[in-house]
C-alpha cells in the first residue's frame, strides 16, 4: 500500500506520542531535570491530544493492515491521552520527594501510552499483540518504580508473571483463530465464524482464550487475583495509570473484538460464559471490597466490579451498547483519576514511606482539607453511581443497555452489586468526616490546590460534577464510537 498524507494525519496521535517518548529519552540522557522533562512530556501529550481532531476529520481509514483509525479509535485515543496527561501531572506532584531517579517514570508512561494508542486502533490480532505488549511491558517497570519499597517490588513481579501468563493464553487463542480462519484480521475472522463451513468449536475456544487473555489485563473474575496486590504496591500515580489508561485501552480492543466477531454475542456457551464472568466480577469485586481498610486495595476491588458492569454493556452487542461503553469508560476514568489523585496528593515517597493508603489516615480529613475531601467525596459518590455525579450517567446507561437487551440476570446483578458497593463507598466517605485523631503520618501540602497536580484534581472533580448534571455533550461525543 502507499502511505498518503491522509494516512499520516490519521496516524498523527500515535506518531507524536512515540516521538515525544524519544525526545524525553534524549532529554534525560542530556540532562536530568525534574521540571523540563515532565514539561516536554506534557507538551507532547497535549499535541497528540490536539492531533486527534484532524485524525477524526480524515474519517475511517485503514493504515497498514494492522491499524484502523476511525471515530472509535479517535475517541479512545483521546481518552487514553487525557488519562496519561492526568497521571503525568499527578506523578510530578508525587515524585517531588522521591529519592532516586525520577525522570524515567515519564518515559515509561509515554511508551506505555503509545502502546495504548496502538491497541485501540488495532484491527488485527498482530496489531493487538504489539499494542498490548507495548502497553504492558513499561508498566512492569512503573509498578516496581519505588523499588526500595518491598511491596512495590513484589507487585511488579506479580504483575509481570501474571501478565505474561495472560499474554501466553492470548497468543494461544490467536493461534487457534488463525489456524481455523487463515487470517489475522478481526473482520476476516469474524466472517469465517459466520461461514457455514467453519468448524465452530476451535474457533470458539480460540475466541474464548483471547477473551481470557484480555480478561487478565482487565482483572475480571476469576482472573483478578493480582489486582489488589498490584494496586496496593504500585506508586499511587502508577495505580491511576493502571486503573485508567491501561484498562481503557484493553477494554476498547475487547469492544472491537466483540463487535467484529459475532460469535461473542450470539447465544451459545461462550455467551453464557461471558455473562457468568460479568456477574461474578460484579458480585465478587464488591464483596471482597466490603471489609477493606486499605484505600488502594479497595479501589482495586471496585475496579473489578466496574469492569463487570462494563462487560454487561459490551456483551449485549447491539443498540446502545457501544455508546454505553464509551460513556461508562469516560465516567470511570474521570472518577478513578480523581480518587487516585487524592491518594497521590496525600502521599509522598520521601524517606521510603508507604503511600497514604490506610483508611484511618483519612479520618477527619474534611476538617483539615475541605476541598480535597470534597473531591474524594464526589469520586466516591460517582463510583457508587449517585446522581449529580458522572458515575450516575454511566450506571444509567449500563442499566438501560441491560434492560434493552433483556439481560435480566445481569441487570439484577448490577442492582445487587451497586447495593453492596454502596456499603464500602459510604464507609470511605464517612471516614473523611469523622472527628480526627491525633495521629497523622501523611498529609497533603498546604498549597496543594496551587500546584499542577492539585489544579488537575480540581478540574477533574468539577468535570465529574458537570458531566453528572449536564451530560449531553459527552453523549454526543460518545456517538462517534458507534461503527
Amino acid at each position, binding site marked *: 500500500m502507499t502511505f498518503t498524507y491522509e494516512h499520516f494525519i490519521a496516524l498523527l496521535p500515535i506518531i507524536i506520542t512515540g516521538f515525544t517518548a524519544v525526545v524525553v529519552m534524549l532529554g534525560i540522557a542530556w540532562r536530568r531535570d525534574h521540571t523540563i522533562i515532565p514539561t516536554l512530556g506534557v507538551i507532547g501529550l497535549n499535541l497528540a491530544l490536539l492531533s486527534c481532531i484532524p485524525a477524526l476529520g480524515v474519517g475511517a481509514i485503514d493504515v497498514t493492515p494492522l491499524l484502523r483509525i476511525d471515530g472509535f479509535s479517535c475517541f479512545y485515543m483521546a481518552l487514553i491521552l487525557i488519562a496519561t496527561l492526568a497521571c503525568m501531572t499527578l506523578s510530578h506532584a508525587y515524585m517531588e520527594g522521591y529519592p532516586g531517579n525520577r525522570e524515567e517514570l515519564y518515559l515509561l508512561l509515554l511508551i506505555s501510552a503509545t502502546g495504548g494508542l496502538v491497541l485501540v486502533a488495532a484491527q488485527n490480532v498482530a496489531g493487538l499483540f504489539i499494542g498490548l505488549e507495548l502497553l504492558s511491558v513499561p508498566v512492569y517497570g512503573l509498578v516496581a518504580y519505588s523499588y526500595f519499597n518491598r511491596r512495590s517490588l513484589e507487585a511488579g513481579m506479580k504483575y509481570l508473571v501474571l501478565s505474561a501468563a495472560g499474554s501466553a493464553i492470548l497468543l494461544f487463542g490467536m493461534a487457534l483463530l488463525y489456524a481455523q480462519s487463515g487470517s489475522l484480521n478481526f473482520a476476516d475472522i469474524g466472517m469465517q465464524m459466520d461461514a457455514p463451513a467453519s468448524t465452530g468449536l476451535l474457533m470458539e475456544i480460540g475466541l474464548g482464550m483471547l477473551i481470557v487473555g484480555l480478561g487478565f489485563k482487565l482483572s475480571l473474575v476469576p482472573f483478578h487475583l493480582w489486582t489488589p496486590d498490584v494496586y496496593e504496591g504500585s506508586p499511587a500515580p502508577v495505580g491511576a495509570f493502571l486503573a485508567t489508561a491501561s484498562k481503557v485501552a484493553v477494554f476498547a480492543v475487547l469492544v472491537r473484538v466483540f463487535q467484529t466477531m459475532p460469535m461473542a454475542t450470539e447465544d451459545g456457551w461462550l455467551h453464557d460464559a461471558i455473562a457468568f464472568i460479568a456477574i461474578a466480577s460484579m458480585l465478587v469485586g464488591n464483596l471482597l471490597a466490603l471489609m477493606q481498610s486499605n484505600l488502594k486495595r479497595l479501589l482495586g476491588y471496585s475496579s473489578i466490579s466496574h469492569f463487570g458492569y462494563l462487560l454487561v454493556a459490551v456483551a449485549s452487542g447491539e443498540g446502545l451498547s457501544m455508546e454505553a461503553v464509551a460513556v461508562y469508560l469516560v465516567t470511570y476514568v474521570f472518577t478513578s483519576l480523581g480518587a487516585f489523585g487524592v491518594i497521590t496528593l496525600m502521599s509522598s515517597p520521601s524517606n521510603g514511606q508507604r503511600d497514604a493508603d490506610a483508611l484511618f489516615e483519612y479520618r477527619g480529613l474534611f476538617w483539615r482539607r475541605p476541598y480535597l475531601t470534597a473531591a474524594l467525596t464526589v469520586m466516591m459518590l460517582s463510583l457508587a453511581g449517585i446522581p*449529580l455525579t458522572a458515575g450516575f450517567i454511566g450506571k444509567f446507561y449500563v442499566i438501560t443497555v441491560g434492560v434493552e437487551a433483556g439481560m435480566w440476570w445481569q441487570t439484577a446483578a448490577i442492582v445487587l452489586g451497586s447495593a453492596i458497593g454502596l456499603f464500602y463507598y459510604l464507609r470511605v466517605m*464517612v471516614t473523611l*468526616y469523622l472527628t480526627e485523631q491525633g495521629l497523622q503520618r501523611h498529609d497533603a501540602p498546604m498549597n496543594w490546590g496551587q500546584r499542577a497536580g492539585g489544579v488537575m484534581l480540581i478540574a477533574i472533580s468539577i468535570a465529574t460534577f458537570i458531566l453528572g448534571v449536564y451530560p449531553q455533550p459527552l453523549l454526543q461525543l460518545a456517538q462517534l464510537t458507534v461503527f
Partner: protein
Amino acid sequence: MLLPWLILIPFIGGLLCFLTEKTGPLVPRWIALFTMLLELVLGLWLWAHGDYSLAPAPGAETAWTAEFQMNWIPRFGISLHFGLDGLSLLMILLTGLLGVLAVTCSWREVQRHVGFFHLNLLWIIGGVVGVFLALDLFLFFFFWEMMLVPMYFLIALWGHSSADGKKSRITAATKFFIFTQASGLIMLVAIVALVLVNYGATGVLTFDYEDLLQLQLDPKLEYLLMLGFFIAFAVKLPVVPLHSWLPDAHAQAPTAGSVDLAGILLKTAAYGLLRFAIPLFPNASAEFAPIAMWLGIIGIFYGAILSFAQTDIKRLVAYSSVSHMGFVLIGIYSGSPQALQGVVVQMIAHGLSAAGLFILCGQLYERMHTRDMRQMGGLWARVPYLPALSLFFASASLGLPGTGNFVGEFLILLGAFPVVPMITVIATFGLVFASVYSLIMIHRAYFGPAKAEGALPGLNARELSMLLLLGVLLVLLGVYPQPVLDTSAASMAGVQQWLGEAFSSLVSAR
C-alpha cells in the same frame, strides 16, 4: 418560572450556609432560617394565586397549575419538566414549614460544624421539593436519589449512637442509604423498561410523564413494572417487610433529621404512589390493591405492637409512623374519593404531629441526656409545659377528634368502608392500638414516681413557639380542613378516576 426557583433556593441557601461557616455559628443559622421562610412564603404565594382545579386526569389533556419545561438531555428525551398541582403544592407547603422547624429545633442541639449541617439540611429540602415537582421520570429519580446523600450525612455525622455502642449512627445511616438506594435502582430498571416499551410502541424515546401516561401496556408487564415502582415506594413509606431501616434511622438521627425523615421523606413515597405508580399503571394497581391494603393492615398492627414494646422514646414514635402509614396505604389503594382526600389530610397531619413528637423527644434529650423511658418517669412535676404539650401531640397521634389526624383517619375509614368493609373494620381496631401506645408513652415518661429530684429547665420562647405553631395548625386542620381538601380535590379526583376505571374493568373482566 417560579418552580425551578423553589428547588434552587434551598440549594443556594445551603451553599451560603457552608461558605459563611467561618464567621461563627449564628450566620449560617439565620441564612438557613431565612431560606426556609422564603421557600414557605413562595409556597403560600403560589397557594393564594394558583388555580387548583387544574390537575392531571385520565383521558383529558394534562393541565397543571404551574409548569416549567426545558431541554436537558435530548439524547434520551429527558427534559427539566416541573409541574405543580394541588397535591404537590400541599406537600411543598409541608416541606417548607417543617424545614423552618428543622432549622429552629437544631438551634441549640447542633453545635459542631453548623454550616455543613445546614448545607445538608437544606439540600434534603431541595431534593424533596424536586421530587414533588418533577414530571420527568429521569428527573424524578434524580431527585429521589439525590436527597439520600445529605440525609446520610445528617444521620452519620450529627446523630446519636446508643449508649451501649451497639447501634451506631453510622450503621443506621448506611442501612438507610442502602435500603433506599437498592430499591431505587429497582425503580430505575422499571422506569427504563417503561421508557423502552414506549419507544418500541411509538418510536419516541421520552421520559416525560405526560407522554408515558398515554401508553397501553400488556397486563403482565404492567404488573411487573408496577411492582418495581411499588418496591421503591414501599421501602420509603415504609411498608412492613421493608421497614427495618426506619426505627434505626429515626432513633440515631438528630432531631432535625427525624423531623425531616418522618415529616417529609416518608411523604415522598405516598406522593410517588399517587403521582406515578397509580396513574402509570392503573390496571395493575387495581389488581394489586387488595395485597397492598393487607400490607397496610399488617403495617398498622405491627407498627402499633412494636411501638408499644419500645423503651426508647424515639423508636416508639418511629414505629408509630409505620402504623400511621398503614392507614395511608389503605386509603390510597381503596380508590374511593373520600379515602384519597383523607390520605392527603392524614399525610399533612402526620407530618405535623410526628414533627411535634420528635421535637419534644429532642427537647427531652437535651434536658435528660437519654431517650430511655425507663430512666424518665415522673417528669410531669419536674418540667413545666413540656408534658402537657406531649400529651397534646400524643392525643393527636392517636386520632383525637379536633385534630387533623382524626379528620384524616376518619375520612380514610369512611371512604374505604363501602369498598373493602372487611379491611376497614380490622383497620379501625388499629385506632385502639394507637391510643394504647400513645398513652403508654405519656404514662412511662411523665407519670409514676420521679427518678430524680430537682426541676429541669423549662421551655424557652423558641421551643414553645415551635410547638404551639404545630399545635395550632393541627387543631385548625382538625376543625376546618376544607381549604386543604379544596386544594387537593382535583388531583385526588384524577387519581380516583384512574383507579375507579381500572376497578370497574377488573370487575367486568371477572
